[in-house]
């Protein structure tokens, strides 16, 4: 069995699982929206979670500041997992070099705000996203003709090329990296400084929510359907009129843009980057986040990203064995829940209950050739 086949078995959806999501969407509109609002508010209160009695004990990270963990790692990983989920989960393209796009985003901010220019962070972000997207298109155009394992190998190479090029190019700071990167501008009471990490968290969370909003729109459109069709059976999709190459390239470009966006947040927060921040291992960890959470399920990706970012910090108590404990935890999840924590679900066609034939008369009349 090839690598990508093995991988595909991980992306099978669970059947007949009535998740929390279904229960929520069956509620009346008002209670549904209040629940969603409540959930979002509680997310914004995350920096204070350690002070809540039981929850605090559960989530707090001994030895590291919880606030630091959620701003430096969790929001970044969640955003990255969301982007990677488009490529891997929706379109079914195994991308093992995703860290490359993340690095491109971070480096564009570094170059434009410190190394070669003094542009403000906010100006750098759209440029960085555009450049990452372009990198996705440049990588995708020749390689998306490949399938399965071959695509995985090429993307793996891409990630390494970006890192090694950054290491060798003096105008990118070489192995010393780039320091004094611009930080996000202060917004009212939110001061982006060294002392308080919370503003970065709020910024990251807001970016995630906006990303989720737009990704949902894509998922529920012709684009999302085309991606799913490509993942399920690329040849059949093409023969049913799906321009598979175009939609695969879109998946790659959108994934790359989100990866780059995560890179800009990272650069704006740590304000110092060097090539060793973007190792191959990170690509693998990003894939692990998506698979652990539930490939093809956006909420799964969010949870997976959060868990992969947070868990090693939670286990700091195990000192030098913490990565081992983290690894065992990942293996256990994969053994007992191979579809991930929140598996992809068969789409619920809610509108079906209310669907009525729009034309009167028997059904035969509707199918003739226009």
């Amino acid at each position: 069995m090839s690598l990508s086949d093995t991988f595909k078995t991980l992306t099978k959806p669970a059947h007949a699982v009535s998740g929390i999501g279904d229960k929520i969407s069956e509620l009346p509109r008002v209670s549904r929206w209040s629940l969603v609002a409540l959930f979002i508010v509680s997310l914004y209160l995350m920096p204070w979670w350690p002070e809540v009695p039981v929850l605090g004990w559960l989530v707090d990270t001994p030895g590291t500041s919880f606030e630091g963990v959620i701003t430096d790692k969790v929001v970044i990983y969640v955003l990255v997992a969301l982007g990677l989920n488009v490529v891997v989960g929706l379109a079914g393209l195994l991308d093992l070099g995703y860290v490359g796009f993340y690095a491109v985003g971070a480096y564009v901010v570094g170059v434009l705000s410190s190394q070669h220019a003094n542009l403000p962070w906010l100006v750098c972000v759209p440029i960085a996203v555009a450049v990452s997207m372009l990198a996705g298109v440049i990588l995708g155009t020749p390689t998306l003709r490949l399938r399965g394992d071959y695509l995985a190998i090429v993307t793996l190479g891409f990630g390494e090329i970006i890192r090694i090029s950054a290491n060798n190019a003096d105008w990118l700071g070489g192995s010393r990296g780039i320091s004094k990167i611009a930080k996000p501008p202060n917004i009212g009471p939110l001061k982006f400084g060294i002392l308080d990490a919370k503003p970065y968290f709020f910024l990251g969370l807001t970016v995630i929510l906006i990303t989720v909003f737009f990704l949902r729109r894509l998922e529920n459109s012709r684009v999302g359907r085309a991606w799913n069709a490509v993942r399920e059976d690329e040849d059949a999709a093409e023969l049913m009129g799906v321009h598979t190459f175009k939609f695969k390239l879109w998946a790659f470009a959108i994934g790359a843009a989100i990866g780059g966006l995560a890179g800009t947040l990272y650069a704006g927060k740590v304000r110092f980057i060097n090539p060793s921040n973007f190792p191959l291992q990170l690509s693998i960890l990003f894939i692990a986040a998506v698979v652990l959470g539930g490939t093809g399920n956006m909420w799964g990706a969010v949870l997976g990203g959060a868990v992969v970012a947070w868990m090693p910090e939670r286990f700091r108590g195990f000192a030098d064995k913490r990565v081992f404990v983290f690894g065992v935890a990942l293996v256990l999840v994969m053994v007992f829940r191979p579809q991930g924590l929140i598996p992809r679900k068969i789409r619920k066609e809610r509108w079906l209950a209310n669907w009525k034939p729009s034309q009167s008369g028997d059904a035969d009349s509707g199918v003739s050739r226009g």
Partner: protein
Amino acid sequence: MQTAGCPVADTILSVDNVTMQFGGVTALSEVNFGIERGEILGLIGPNGAGKTTCFNVITGVYAATSGSVTFDGQPLAGLKRFQITKRGIARTFQNIRLFPDMTAVENVMVGADANHKTSVGGALIGSRRHHREEREGRDRAMELLTFMGIADRAGDAARNLPYGYQRRLEIARALATGPKLLCLDEPAAGFTPAEKQELMDLIRKIRSQGYTVLLIEHDMSLVMGVTDRIVVLDFGKVIAMGSPAEVQNNPDVIAAYLGVPDDAA
């Protein structure tokens, strides 16, 4: 009897001198035939005769080694597979190839999307066209599922549908692309005689809606009962062409396809 090669005004698809070689193997050799608009043409032949290869050449899966395929007055050479579908040729598969984890109605909507234009931009801003096309796609999909008699399981994953439903779902998905020519590759494989009869009626009904149908089929009774004309392939060559009755009594066909004369009926 020989209609191929001569450009009749109403020939929707013509296959001219198509040869298809895979390395040293010649799967199709100088194949010539045409399909008239509005007819049901049967393509039959023993196993390995080249029927599915012929299908694959028509739908662009393979590029013919030599010869050409003309559809609706335009050559198909050089077109991508999805472009051929958009021109108006849709197909089903010998081995069912649905999108297993998508619902039945979603499967059909993918087909309907061949006529739609919404892309990333329109979906992101939730354009008016996006909403209109979603609504149209749903209506079209439900109409086709109703037409095929499988609308009761519209919300189920394709993988969970019974075999007969899956076969019919493939036809619904192909019809959703809005084809002028519908190519069915052994649509009745694995069916009981009663189901085959039902399918025959359905194919006739599809034709009466104005579609042209190209049908590959093993089951002689189905082919004889439903087709207007039949093309017989054997070892990659057209050995006979004509009405079911003509083909049925053609000694070459009897020899090649049916083996012993007694089985001809």
